[in-house]
């Protein structure tokens, strides 16, 4: 038991050392934070003031509708950070340095996970504050609001794992961006993140309704008490968005995390 606790402490402290390394990167190159600060802020302003005037949300105001969508979109694109960071490390041979040191094996992956979750937290704060400025409000109570943030965290967690899997799979850091656009772009734009899915043409509408992003967005709106543009007979995931969203998070993390760890082992065992 003592040995076990010592081991966990050892792994945690090594992971923290490596997480701090990523944060130090940010201190050296502050532009690295743009994608979790300035970029989401731009999206809020762009959608609120450029598209906001022309998009009509039945039963609510667009600024309140919008924020859930932008939060989830930012977290979905949040896979790019860990993906690029890990792919860069794998390419630069620094992993060999780490592996020749008497550190915990899992600390490399866990360190990236911790650092990315910290960055994601910052993004959520930036988005929430800028949302409040443009007129978004939490209409539910505190427990529901906390539940909404907890759900967003779970989604971010699963997307960071997905990003690490991609970063460990591709050969160059640049490829991460390609994969992200190929996968995350359609998922976030063909969804209910910015416009109600009901208005989409057949085919796209079904995709949007069953898309994991839509479930998480709908759940976030429900928990914040924001308008969600309900339709007469919503499909199952949008009728039970919280359960569907949690299910999707479990599926994404449940598949990505073990695969990422396996991939890391494969690429470092020789």
């Amino acid at each position, binding site marked *: 038991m003592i040995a076990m606790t010592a081991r966990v402490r050892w792994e945690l402290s*090594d992971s923290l*050392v490596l997480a701090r*390394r990523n944060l*130090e*990167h940010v201190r*050296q*190159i502050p532009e690295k934070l743009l994608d979790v600060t300035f970029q989401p802020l731009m999206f809020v302003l762009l959608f609120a003031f450029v598209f906001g005037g022309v998009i009509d949300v039945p039963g609510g105001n667009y600024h309140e509708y919008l924020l859930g969508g932008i939060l989830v979109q930012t977290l979905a694109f949040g896979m790019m950070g860990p993906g690029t960071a890990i792919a860069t490390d794998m390419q*630069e*041979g*620094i*992993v*060999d*340095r*780490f*592996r*020749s*040191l*008497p*550190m915990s094996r899992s600390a490399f992956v866990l360190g990236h996970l911790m650092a990315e979750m910290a960055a994601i937290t910052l993004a959520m704060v930036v988005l929430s504050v800028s949302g409040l400025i443009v007129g978004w409000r939490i209409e539910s109570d505190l427990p529901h609001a906390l539940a909404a943030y907890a759900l967003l965290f779970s989604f971010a967690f699963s997307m960071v794992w997905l990003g690490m899997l991609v970063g460990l799979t591709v050969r160059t850091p640049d490829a991460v961006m390609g994969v992200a656009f190929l996968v995350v772009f359609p998922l976030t734009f063909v969804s209910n993140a910015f416009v109600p899915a009901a208005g989409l043409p057949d085919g796209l509408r079904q995709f949007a309704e069953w898309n994991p992003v839509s479930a998480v967005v709908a759940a976030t709106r429900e928990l914040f008490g924001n308008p969600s543009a309900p339709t007469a007979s919503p499909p199952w995931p949008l009728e039970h968005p919280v359960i569907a969203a949690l299910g999707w998070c479990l599926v994404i993390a449940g598949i990505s995390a073990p695969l990422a760890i396996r991939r890391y082992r494969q690429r470092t*065992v*020789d």
Partner: protein
Amino acid sequence: MTVSHHGVHAEGLGKRYGDNWALADVDLDVPTGTVLGLLGHNGAGKTTAVRILSTLARPTTGTATVAGFDVVADPLAVRRSIGVAGQYASVDGLLTARANLELAGRLYHLPRDVVRRRAVELLGRVGLADKAGDLVKTFSGGMRRRLDLAASLMAEPPVLFLDEPTTGLDPQSRSDLWDLLREMVRDGGTLVLTTQYLDEADRLADDIMVLDEGRIAATGSPAELKRRVGGERIEVTAPEASDLEAASSALGGYADGPVSVDDGRLVIPIRTGTRLMEIVRSLDSAGVEATDVQRREPTLDDVFLTLTGSARRAPACPTEGREPDSEEIAA
């Protein structure tokens, strides 16, 4: 099996990648406080040997102990006892030089104050004291190598592995690095070093192991090896094969080993004390139309030529559109 041996010890070490044995049947023994130079071309198995000994790769066959610990059974104990500096300086470009060293120190689990002190001390020792706060991505290749070396020294490990520490460095950086390494070894460190340069192995190593296609081609002290390989070479370049033959017979008297012709050049190991002027005069009186005559130190190619009787080309610099041909001419 209890192993009381320290330093580095390996028996029957082999590593197979697919169908290719990158390393086969390598036995080695590096007593504490000595330097082993692994000498060979690219692809000779030097890096594979170092990767196995530093726990980065698992051997397909054989066993190895480093500082008394088995590399397969107890990799963590081995990692606590070693420093590794790779061929591709594994430093973090987005951190400062000091932060790189502190990162390594923390991952060796050294106390915080020791980490700070050692980082400053080592930056001074590798001549980067004034660059401590600079981002490593702005560093030149030589500076990265020196930082990488410093990182491998953070825990003052008893055993050090350096994979081609001076490849790609300019002559000044090379000789600075040699001084640094000699200083380290003087302090009692055990060092395994790989290199493609005969002079580097000669200057730094107590023992040299020549690797060729994953196997040991020769072992011995630098003095023994040099005795076998001979001293300086004379290279005669001429456009016509007949001129090279004429040169070969004209200079036969100066030869101190097998003469070879390779790529339009005649290479002759010469007896110590032979003057370049004598060579040029002999060529001139034999009527040889030489375009170039030069004197140089023996290289790794000469080692292979002497030991195996055939020139072994480094795969990194292939001769284009032509099979590496070499023929021996009896001296």
